[in-house]
């Protein structure tokens, strides 16, 4: 049996699945308990698991992630919510300098099984300070795993994998995807971190996308099919670990690569993938490796302006057509 559920309901279902399994999984964050989260991704959890395991915190991001880290160091498996990924900047020391490095610099004395969930990305017209796609910030720090699901099934399966993983995982929920629906099987769902998924088979060009860009890439692929271009679409799902094998194998067949990123241009994750393919897949290529990103500009609020900057189905369509020329 399967049912159609929303991306936001999948978050609560994934958390509940893991909390039932492991009493050391605790949730902390701002407005997550009684209010069920500002994006309503955690409703019902307080009722089922009680206030000791689903705890509201003050607006103190360093205190939240510090508590998660100290708890993970001492036997718990905390899941901390940072309401908007933009707010990671207020606690970046804890993320990048403490959580990411402590195992290494203590020669493995600590294991840090914790998950930081956060609402990432644009599309809700929240303006420059509540719309950033910052998954690339996390990707560039050694010691952090970075996951970004594109659909409800992956939300559950990757969240379960992240919670069970012994290392710290940043789990980027794309906030414009919360109301979107997808089919989800009954029973326990657990995916593996570091496995990209080919979501559309094709032979002419590989499009690598993440989170909200996956749907856009698939829609663009349909338009391309009308043009006679058979695009393969890869949902990356995880930036660290990075499934380079799937990418290189795909590009080896299609001989062309376009990456679609929501993050701004400079040092986006697509640059890393393009660099890997340039080094290791160069002799198979028939076209320049090409990145589609948000321009290197903060995001405006007005819907017309925000849509102008974000990678769109049309932009992906046009760019791929040029690459195919």
């Amino acid at each position, binding site marked *: 049996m399967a049912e159609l559920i929303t991306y936001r309901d999948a978050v609560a279902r994934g958390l509940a699945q893991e909390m039932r399994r492991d009493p050391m999984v605790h949730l902390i964050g701002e407005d997550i308990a009684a209010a069920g989260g500002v994006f309503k991704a955690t409703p019902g959890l307080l009722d089922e698991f009680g206030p000791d395991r689903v705890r509201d915190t003050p607006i103190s991001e360093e205190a939240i992630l*510090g508590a998660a880290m*100290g708890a*993970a160091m001492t036997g718990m498996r905390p899941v901390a919510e940072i309401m908007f990924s933009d707010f990671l900047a207020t606690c970046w020391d804890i993320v990048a300098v403490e959580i990411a490095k402590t195992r290494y610099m203590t020669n493995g004395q600590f294991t840090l099984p914790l998950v930081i969930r956060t609402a990432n990305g644009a599309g809700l017209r929240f303006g420059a300070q509540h719309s950033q796609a910052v998954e690339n910030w996390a990707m560039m720090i050694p010691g952090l795993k970075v996951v970004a699901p594109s659909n409800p099934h992956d939300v559950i399966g990757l969240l379960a994998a992240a919670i069970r993983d012994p290392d710290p995982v940043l789990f980027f929920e794309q906030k414009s995807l919360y109301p979107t629906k997808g089919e989800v099987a009954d029973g326990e769902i657990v995916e593996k971190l570091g496995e990209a998924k080919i979501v559309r088979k094709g032979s002419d060009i590989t499009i690598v996308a993440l989170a909200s860009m996956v749907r856009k890439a698939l829609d663009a692929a349909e338009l391309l099919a009308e043009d006679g271009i058979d695009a393969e679409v890869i949902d990356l799902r995880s930036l660290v670990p990075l499934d380079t094998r799937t990418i290189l194998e795909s590009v080896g067949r299609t001989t062309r690569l376009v990456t679609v990123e929501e993050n701004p241009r400079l040092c986006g994750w697509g640059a890393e993938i393009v660099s890997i393919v340039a080094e290791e897949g160069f002799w198979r290529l028939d076209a320049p490796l090409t990145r589609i990103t948000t321009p290197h500009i903060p995001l405006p609020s007005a819907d017309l302006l925000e849509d102008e900057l974000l990678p769109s189905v049309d932009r992906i369509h046009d760019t791929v057509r040029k690459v195919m020329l």
Partner: protein
Amino acid sequence: MSETLTPDVGAPDAPDTSDLDTATRLALYEQVVRIRRFEERAYRLFMEGLVKGTSHLSLGMEAIASGVATAMNSDDYTFCTYRGHAHTLSRGASMDAVMAELLGRATGVCGGKGGSMHLTDVEHGVMGSYAIIGAHLPIANGAAWSSLVRGTDQVTACFFGDGTTNIGAFHEALNFAAIWKLPIVFFCENNLYMEYTAIKDVTAVPRPAADRASAYGLEPITVDGNDPEAVHLVARDAFARARAGEGPSLVEALTYRHGGHSRADPGKYRPDEEVAEWMTRDPYVTYRERLLELGVDEQELDDIVERADAAVDAATESAKAAPLPELRAAYTDVWADGGNAWRN
């Protein structure tokens, strides 16, 4: 101690230590001596170039780590700062392994990957030395929260300097600990200088920690940080409250560092008369005098010093003789599987 420590700070609370037993007193003295002799040696080794990087010494401040550690159980947690040699040794970490870490050896507490600023020894409850001001206060809260969740009797001691009281993480952590009633005691080691600047020149209140306590519903607790017995009793009481479910405490221990902030700092910004005045309060000297006044046998004290020196000598020799890390150690333990792979 009833006299005023400085005009700005005022006299600390003075617990009655007259009932302390001799065994505790000797344990306190041994801690002070071991830390002092170790750090004097560490300083020399830095000057000889045997220790790379930087170092931050607690010379003059040993009474705090000593007084607190002697009030803890072996499974309690300590979180300290980059100035953490004292706090690490006081919990029972191997002096050989700490010295080896300073010398970058494979046998160091962190295998040479942490260094002076990141001494960690989980086996002895030393949950890390943190080198970013304020960062470890929220992290220490997490360990204290975990003790509650796991239903243990553990308490957490979190040490930091006066400068930390002006960073956001301090305030976030104190509020968080208070509302969650965490079994944690925050020890502010107020040595009057943040790094090179006097704390009073950059802080809105005279007592940087104690004067903030009321903002978190906590009692303002001050203690003479150069008196190991006073620190011990204040810590013991605070830990007892924490274990009894009464929540956190914030203790401001007044002290003075004999040297500068770090190896690179001769500490010239401090007036000569101030340094001279504080040198008369050196716990290494004054506590020995007190113990003699109390009738402790001088030979016992000499034996403690002798044992400490022997331990420091042995640690030095063993660290110098210890193997350097294998180069492959640079690549290990990014992840829990022991490796560093980020791709397939």
